[in-house]
């Protein structure tokens, strides 16, 4: 049963304290109103409220302002007449008032008035808008998302001055009550897609949502999957591009990452730079990323396959060179790869966890000293060091650390196949992998589109080749948008007529 806040301050304070629990970080300030001399209680959480605003616009106003007509009949009227805050709402339930305090608002109880006045004094220390650390680029805007949801939405709004940009808020997490925003373009995005995502957000039943990545798992619901079904970015420009393409964006409070859905496998290879570089260079960079991904997944398995089962796949000179290099190595090719790959993963994990300066030292120690020492000691051959290094470098070409990790994980499956069945095993496992990917979808969009199913027009719009902006006039059919025309009313005529620019 919900407890209401009665007019008597002692009782309403008691109800509020009960709703707030036993926490000691809640600050209770007792006041006596200058008008009418009534007692009042101001409750807030230290560190979450704007103390200056609270002092100047609430406490001092209550203590010093004398209302000539006496106290007004309702608490709302009292707030309007006495306080200078814009955000103030009246709340009758103790639980709701407590919830507001936990969000960072202040709550005012006045003796003789039922209910409480919730004051929008929210302010906490937050990171300023900086460049996105996980998606650095050479071109394009530098700003990245921060932890505050409203700031993140403002970064999107700044780029998209369109009334069709719809933002809908949800509270997710039975205990954390995290604010989640679902964004879409009303006149572009497929309505069924929006409804589907909003329903899934609303249906999340979990106690705490700490980051958007947690939300992603709960949204897609797939437990046994390696490949992500939603995009994840720290860059507002990429979110805007996704919205304009007909996708839906999901942002969560306290998370600098935005989710975009649906996505295809191809989307995971596109970087922000692609949209700010000439198409030919984009094509080249995207091809390099594909090669990087394949190198990550296939280099080590192919090394094992060729060295152990199918040396005939390389030309004679190379095979003889390999045999010469391998001569005297005590480890089998599979063990060689295993040793170095594990070392590389350990090194990778260590450099991610360590501070930058120490991390670079660890890289030098791991990469140069251990690798060089292993080759010098004839524990592993020089070739396998090159193979594993190329494999590792390949994973760094893929935008977003996450997909690099996915391809690295895929590599282990292929290494197992190569160790047991050689090169045939590698190709057999790759076939199974791509067959499985072909059966997957992201919120109804085939994961391998526009290749499987084949959508020729999309292949020419924004796949390996990013079309020149002047020819990029159609949206991709893959996302089944309401409006696939990216052009609008011609601006030139208005300009020539001396009108709007």
């Amino acid at each position, binding site marked *: 049963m919900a407890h209401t806040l009665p007019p008597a301050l002692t009782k309403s304070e008691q109800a509020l304290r009960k709703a707030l629990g036993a926490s000691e970080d809640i600050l209770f300030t007792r006041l006596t109103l200058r008008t009418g001399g009534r007692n009042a209680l101001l409750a807030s959480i230290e560190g979450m409220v704007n103390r200056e605003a609270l002092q100047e616009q609430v406490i001092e106003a209550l203590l010093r302002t004398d209302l000539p007509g006496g106290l007004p009949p309702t608490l709302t009227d009292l707030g309007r007449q006495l306080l200078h805050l814009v955000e103030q709402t009246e709340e009758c339930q103790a639980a709701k008032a407590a919830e507001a305090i936990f969000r960072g608002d202040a709550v005012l109880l006045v003796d003789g008035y039922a209910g409480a006045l919730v004051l929008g004094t929210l302010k906490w220390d937050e990171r300023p808008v900086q460049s996105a650390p996980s998606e650095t680029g050479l071109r394009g805007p530098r700003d990245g998302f921060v932890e505050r949801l409203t700031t993140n939405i403002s970064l999107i709004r700044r780029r998209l001055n369109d009334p069709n940009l719809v933002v809908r808020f949800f509270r997710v997490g039975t205990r954390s009550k995290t604010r989640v925003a679902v964004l879409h373009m009303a006149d572009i995005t497929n309505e069924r897609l929006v409804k589907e995502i909003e329903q899934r957000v609303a249906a999340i039943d979990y106690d705490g949502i700490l980051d958007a990545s947690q939300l992603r798992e709960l949204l897609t619901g797939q437990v046994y999957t390696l490949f992500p079904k939603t995009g994840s970015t720290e860059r507002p420009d990429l979110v805007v591009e996704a919205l304009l393409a007909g996708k839906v964006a999901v942002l969560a409070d306290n998370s600098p990452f935005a989710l975009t859905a649906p996505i295809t496998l191809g989307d995971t290879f596109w970087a922000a730079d692609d949209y700010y570089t000439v198409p030919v260079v984009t094509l080249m960079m995207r091809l390099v990323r594909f090669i990087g991904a394949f190198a990550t997944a296939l280099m080590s398995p192919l090394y094992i396959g*060729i*060295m*152990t*089962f*199918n*040396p*005939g796949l390389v030309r*004679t*000179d190379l*095979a*003889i060179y*390999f*045999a*010469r290099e*391998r*001569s*005297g*190595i005590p480890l*089998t*090719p599979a063990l060689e790869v295993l040793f170095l790959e594990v070392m590389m993963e350990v090194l990778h994990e260590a450099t991610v966890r360590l501070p930058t300066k120490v991390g670079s030292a660890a890289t030098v120690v791991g990469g140069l000293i251990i690798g060089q020492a292993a080759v010098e000691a*004839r524990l592993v051959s020089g070739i396998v060091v090159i193979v594993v290094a190329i494999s590792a470098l390949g994973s760094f070409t893929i935008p977003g650390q996450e997909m690099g990790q996915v391809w690295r994980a895929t590599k282990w499956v292929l290494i197992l196949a190569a160790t*047991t*069945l*050689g*090169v*045939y*095993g590698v190709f*057999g496992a790759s*076939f*199974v992998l791509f067959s499985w990917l072909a059966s997957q979808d992201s919120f109804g969009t085939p994961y391998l589109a526009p290749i499987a199913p084949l959508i020729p027009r999309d292949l020419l719009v924004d796949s390996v080749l990013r079309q020149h902006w002047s020819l990029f006039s159609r949206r991709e059919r893959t996302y089944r948008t309401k409006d696939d025309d990216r052009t609008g009313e011609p601006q030139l005529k208005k300009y020539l007529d001396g009108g709007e620019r």
Partner: protein
Amino acid sequence: MERRRGLVGVAWLLAAVLLVVTGCWDARPIEQRAFVVMIGFDWDPEAQYRVTLQVQRAGYEAQGSGRQRAAPMAQIVVSEGQTPRKALEHARDRLARELDTTFLELTVIGRTLAERNLDELDWVVRTFRVPVSGYVAVAPADAESVVRGKAPGYGIPAQFAFFGQMGGVFTRSAAIVSGPMWMMFNRNFFTPLEDNFAPVLGLQGEDLDWQGLAVFKEHRLVGMLSETDAAHFNLLSGSRAEMVVGAKVPGREGAQATLYLQTVSVRRKVVWQGDRPVIQVRAVARGDLQELIGMRLWSPADEEAVEGALAGALATRIKGLIARLQELESDPLGFGELARQAAPYRREVQSGEAWREVYRDAPVDVLVTVRMVAPGYMK
């Protein structure tokens, strides 16, 4: 349900395919394989077969205070047996590593064995894992000495023979005939009216040297032709045209021309005149005039005279080659097959034996046209 059944079917098919292809049971690290890159087969009248293997030697040699890489050397293994297979098995036993013929690039057949019968080596391509890209050569004497031969500039002689020469990548010599192994043992699969041929690989001093063309008759070596003949054989078979042709210019005293042929278009044909087949060769050769001694090209008439002289010289050499082949009763250029195509139901083209009876005396009609692409004057 249907879809599930289909998936199960695909899974079974995949499992079956994986079982028949290589697996754990075929695992052998690359350094434990002895890659045979060149193999020689000899036979002596005492009915002993000798196999000579050129195996790549992998490894390091200790030098000074630390390990330094030695140049890869070829290891030679010789063994004998009552049959070629037994000889090879003995060779296998003597190797410390697993015999692997994945990179067998050149098979050299000793002269005595080639003269005896090529069929005895048929098993090499039938039961032995030999790549289709391998080549065959015939030694002018024994194969062993050729397999032991040196190839300056290359660590492994077989590589010299294969990449440097027969592959045609690093050579402009017109006399090197290409003899793919799959063709050598399958030629009669396409037609019984065509005989085998192979390049002759011998030694000059200790070094490997291509020395002409070996021609076969019914799988037996019947003769070895010179390098000049081999070059014209290449020209007629359309495999290689770059060669130098020299001729004295008739009617111009002391005049001599040299032409570097660049492209040659050849049409070979057999026409029947009564019961006699007539071998016709029509060739149009184009090339650069490289040398002209004793005359100058002042007019088109001079040009025609030079072209006519070169054409005559080329025709004479082609006629000489065909006459030599007719004398040996060997038909590696496939005139018999052309005759069969012209008249499929004639008795003379129903077997190799019947064809050879008319082939040896068939008249030859050769017409060569030479066009100088760069004669050296402005028309």
